[in-house]
Structures are given as structure tokens and as C-alpha cells.
């Protein structure tokens, strides 16, 4: 464990309905014309939140009651589509640090974990109940307990799942793999020496 270690996420939550919420929806491509990730938070779910004339659409993400949310509750196959890290970056920069969904697209899951954005899987019925609970009482605190693998809200407790390796690196605070990868430098040379296409 180190200072980056993430064992528990606590905060209010907001329900973002729909399956197959893709990365273009999370951050439309036109906002990726940038050379840093700074400022991406503003454009999170932009077309979900705004009409073409710039006025706000009716959506939980625009609802004052959920303005303090730091956890997103979503559907199945969340984050499908592109490998753009702009998606989890915009989620994080908009102040969210976890997503609870029915399933995640693989690259999105990996990108999120690398940033310390916690992605856990909760079954459809349980998620529906969570969505109902926060809709009735937006001030309820949702807590994601990575040690016990539970999502707790009010008096309710639901099982959640997360890939073993991701859980371990979040708990140990080693989710940014770079330092550990750098330690492997000499082993890398050995593997490289066995691969012709890299040497020639």
C-alpha cells in the first residue's frame, strides 16, 4: 500500500441511463482537438447535456439535485468504441472518480484503471435499485468498498465485481504501471534480442 492506494470510494451518485454508452458520447471527437487533457471536464457528455443551440437538455447530468455527484451509475458495455483516454480523463476532470456499470468495454476499463478511476460491475437489478434510491434521495452517499467488494447505499448493500488485477493495483496504489514497467528494462533487452524484426 502507498499514498495512492484506493480502498474505498464514497460520494453521491448520478444515474446515466442507457446501454452501449460509447466514448463519442462521453466526449465528442470535436472536443479532442487539444494537446493536453486539461479542460476536458467541461465537455463530458456534451451532446447528452446540450442541444445544438447550446441550451440545456433535460438530463440527470444537468439536474441540480445531482450536481455534487462524484460517481456515475451507467448501463451495459459502458465506454465502448474508441481507445481515447480523453473519455476517462474527461470523467475524472469533471470530478467523478468511479463508474458503476453492468459491464465495461475493455479498453475504457483499462484506461480508467490506469488513472485511478474505479470501474465496478453491478448486476442489472441491483443497479436499477441504486438508480431508484438516488433518484428518491440524491443526497444518499454511495460507497464502493474495494476490499469487501460491496457497493453500499443507505441500508442496502450490493455485491460488485472488478477484475482481480485492477483491484489489486487500485488497492496497492500501483495502478499507474509506468514505474514498474521501467524496472523491467534489462529484461526488455533480453526479449528484444530474440526478436529479429526489432534488431535489424
Amino acid at each position, binding site marked *: 500500500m502507498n499514498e495512492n492506494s484506493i480502498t474505498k470510494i464514497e460520494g453521491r451518485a448520478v444515474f446515466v441511463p442507457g446501454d452501449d454508452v460509447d466514448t463519442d458520447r462521453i466526449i465528442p*471527437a470535436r472536443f479532442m482537438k487539444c494537446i493536453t487533457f486539461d479542460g476536458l471536464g467541461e465537455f463530458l457528455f456534451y451532446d447528452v447535456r446540450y442541444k445544438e443551440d447550446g441550451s440545456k437538455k433535460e438530463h440527470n447530468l444537468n439536474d441540480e439535485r445531482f450536481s455534487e455527484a462524484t460517481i456515475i451509475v451507467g448501463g451495459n458495455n459502458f465506454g465502448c468504441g474508441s481507445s481515447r483516454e480523453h473519455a476517462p480523463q474527461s470523467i475524472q476532470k469533471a470530478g467523478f472518480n468511479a463508474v458503476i456499470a453492468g459491464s465495461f468495454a475493455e479498453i475504457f476499463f483499462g484506461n480508467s484503471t490506469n488513472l485511478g478511476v474505479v470501474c465496478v460491475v453491478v448486476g442489472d437489478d441491483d443497479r436499477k435499485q441504486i438508480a431508484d434510491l438516488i433518484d428518491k434521495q440524491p443526497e444518499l452517499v454511495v460507497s464502493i468498498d474495494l476490499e469487501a467488494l460491496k457497493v453500499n447505499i443507505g441500508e442496502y448493500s450490493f455485491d460488485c465485481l472488478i477484475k482481480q488485477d485492477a483491484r489489486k493495483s487500485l488497492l496497492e496504489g500501483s495502478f499507474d504501471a509506468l514505474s514498474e514497467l*521501467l524496472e523491467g528494462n534489462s529484461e526488455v533487452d533480453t526479449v528484444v534480442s530474440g526478436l529479429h524484426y526489432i534488431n535489424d
Partner: protein
Amino acid sequence: MGKTLFEKVWDAHSVKTLSNGQTQLLIGTHLIHEVTSPQAFGMLRERGLSVRFPKRTFATVDHIVPTNEAVEPYSDSLAQGMIEELRNNCVENDITFFDTNTGHQGIVHIVGPEQGITQPGTTIACGDSHTSTHGAFGAIAFGIGTSQVRDVLATQTIALNELKVRRINVNGKLAPGVYAKDVILHIIRTLGTNGGTGFAYEYGGEVFDGFSMEERMTVCNMSIEGGARVGYVNPDDITFEYLKGRKYCPKDADFDQAVECWRNFASDADCQYDDVVTINASEIQPTVTWGITPGQGIGINECIPTIESGETQSARASIAEALDHMSFEGGSELKGKKIDVAFLGSCTNGRLSDLKEVAHYLKGKKVAEGVKAIVVPGSQVVAKIAKSLGLDEIFTEAGFEWRGAGCSMCLAMNPDKLIGNQLCASSSNRNFKGRQGSPTGRTLLMSPIMVAAAAITGEVSDAREIFEF
């Protein structure tokens, strides 16, 4: 027991097991473009790290390049900033850059194979989910995020979980008018947009054995739309023939030696797959998407599903959402819907064979009045060869706009965009809401020949009724 190609390549590139149980995997070939790499170079600078193997990274610019404006500075200053940033990063780090003035610039997934950088038995990564395209050569090719682009630059490795392998056989023969694009749209429709999660897809069977490299690339390209991060075809003589003489491939005796080595990477006859799916080629129809995920595809003569046809609550909600966005009625025919735009291009179908095939049938025909039709070669090399064959003239005579190489209308990072709720017949790979630049724009994914048929008739059409196959 034998091994799959995936296992062989994985084993040859495994560096070690990391503390969380993931594998540190060597990435032999790294491709970068202007959208997902600048932040990675920024992170390197912040940590005082340098690029470990600069010769193993190759760069091109594709997403933001305007296709109707060749001279810099581009009218979009943000786009100009991005191309300059990439240029500087490449110079500073001694990375090969297929810049716009080299004659080799193009969409990253077209440039890699074209230059012979994409080779069998290798690992390839790029900050782009359609990196799966390169699997057509028997490479294991991953789309990665920007932090991983940083990892590859700094260490030539990334942390990954080993994937399971699903073999997808397509046996029999495709009917005339049915193309590689229809095969992959059919596979995604059958297995679902998240059916491939945790899997590498190995494509094989008679149809793939007979496919050209470009057709194999079209299928592998869209593996990610089926949820599979990796898709590949075992290398064979068709692969080696394609690679022979390409710039970054070994030459002469070295090439023959390389072929021997590449051949050995193919899956062994007695290997074990985690799953096997078999599809009969004769079932595959020209397939078109009607909704907002690539899995929402139907045969051209089927009707758009009704909400009630969804088997679960969430399936019904997805259909309802898609029908709403597309302004389609459940149960109605897709055929006959008026289109506004026809887009031929992208890393799925912007290759020479796509343009050639369409031009062959387009000759002497005219784009319907009121339809904006554009054709965008996937690379400068494709454009050059196409021109030398006179394809550009066939397209322009028919009423298509002939453009410069780039991603163009596949996504909204350059001036080529849908306007309002225009309906676009597109040879690209994603029909997500807003994908083509207008939040209310509507995309129908289909094969290039179906795009041509729609362009000519002004409505979604069965190409088999328009052209003689």
C-alpha cells in the same frame, strides 16, 4: 498440444509478470498519430524520460487533416497546432513521421500495412482502437490509451491481461454483391457489440482463406466494434505476397528467412480455442446498420426491428433510443430511405481495392441529385495509384468529390461533417450518435458498393439491384 498464433506471439513478447498479475508485454511496433500522442510526450517530458526505442515508433497524421485544403497553415488553428506538435515531437525524439509532404501520409491503419511496417508474428500498439486492423497480417495489434502510449514510448512495453481466443470460421462462399464489410457487420450483429470482451478473434475458414489482405483488414478493423480488442487472420502465402518488396520489410534472402519465421506463427492444427463460432457464408446478406451501434445491423431486405422485438427490457430501451435518434419507425423498410450524404473512405474501406471495386461499377453512372458524395482515399499512396488508374476521373464524372487522404467524415475532427440530422450512407465503422460531427447526424454503415448504390439512387438500395454482379 499446439498453440494459437495469439499464444505464440504473446509468449515471444512476454517480458515478465507484474505484481498485480498482468503481463509486461513487449510492443515491437508502435504507431502514433496527432490526437492521442501529444499528451503522452507531455507526460514523458514531465517525468524526464526519453523514448527508449525511437526506431520502433512510426507516426502519421490523419484525424485532423482537412481533405480539401493542402496548404498550411490550415484554417483551423487547433488542427494546425496538433500537426505541429506531432512534427516537433517526432523531430525531437528521432521518430519517423510520414508527414503530409512525404507522399506517404494517410490513415495510420492504412499506412502501416502499405509501408510493410505491419508484419506477422509481431506485437503492434497504437493509441487508436482500430489498431486491430493490423491483425490481418497475423500480428497481435492493440488499441491503447494515451497513458499506455507513454508507457510504450518510455519502455516499449505495456501491462496487459492475456486474452482468450475465439475462432470464427466463415465457411462456404459469399454470394455476389456480398463483401468483407458485410461479413464483419454480420459477425457483430450475431455475436453482439460486447460479445468479444476478453477475447481475441481469430478469423478463418474458406472465406478468409480466399480473401485478399485488404478484405482481411476490413474485417479485422471492426473487431473492436464487436468488443474484441484484437482480431487476426493467420499469415499465409497471400500475406507474404502482399508484403514482398514493401519498404520496411526484409529484402531478398532475408525476406525468405522472414517468411519461414512468419509461417511458424500461424496457429497449429491441434491448438485449443476457448471458443469456436462457425458461420455459413451463404447466410450473409449485404448488411446495413439502422441504429446507433454497429451491432444494430440487418440484411438489406429485412425490416427495421420494432421495440417489442427486443428480448429484454434493456434491449427494448436500446431499440427505442436508436429509432428515436434515427427517426425511423420500427417495422419499416430500411431500403428506400432517402440519404443526404454518401461517404466512401476510412480505415475500414478507404483502400485501393475498395475504390477500384466501386469505380468499376460506377462507370457511366451519376450520383442522384441532392446527394453530397465524397470519396476519400485512405492514404496518399492509395490516392496516387488510384489517380494513375484514372479512378479519380470515374468518381468525379459520376458526381463524387475526390478528396485528399485522411479520416475525413469518419469522425468529426476535420471540416468534413454532417449537418443537422442528415442521413449518411457510410463505408466507415461507427454509427454512434454524433460520430460524424453533427449531434443529430445519422449514420448507416454499409459496404462501399452499397454506398455507391445509395449515392446513385439517392436512397438506401440493394446494390445487387443496381449493378450487375
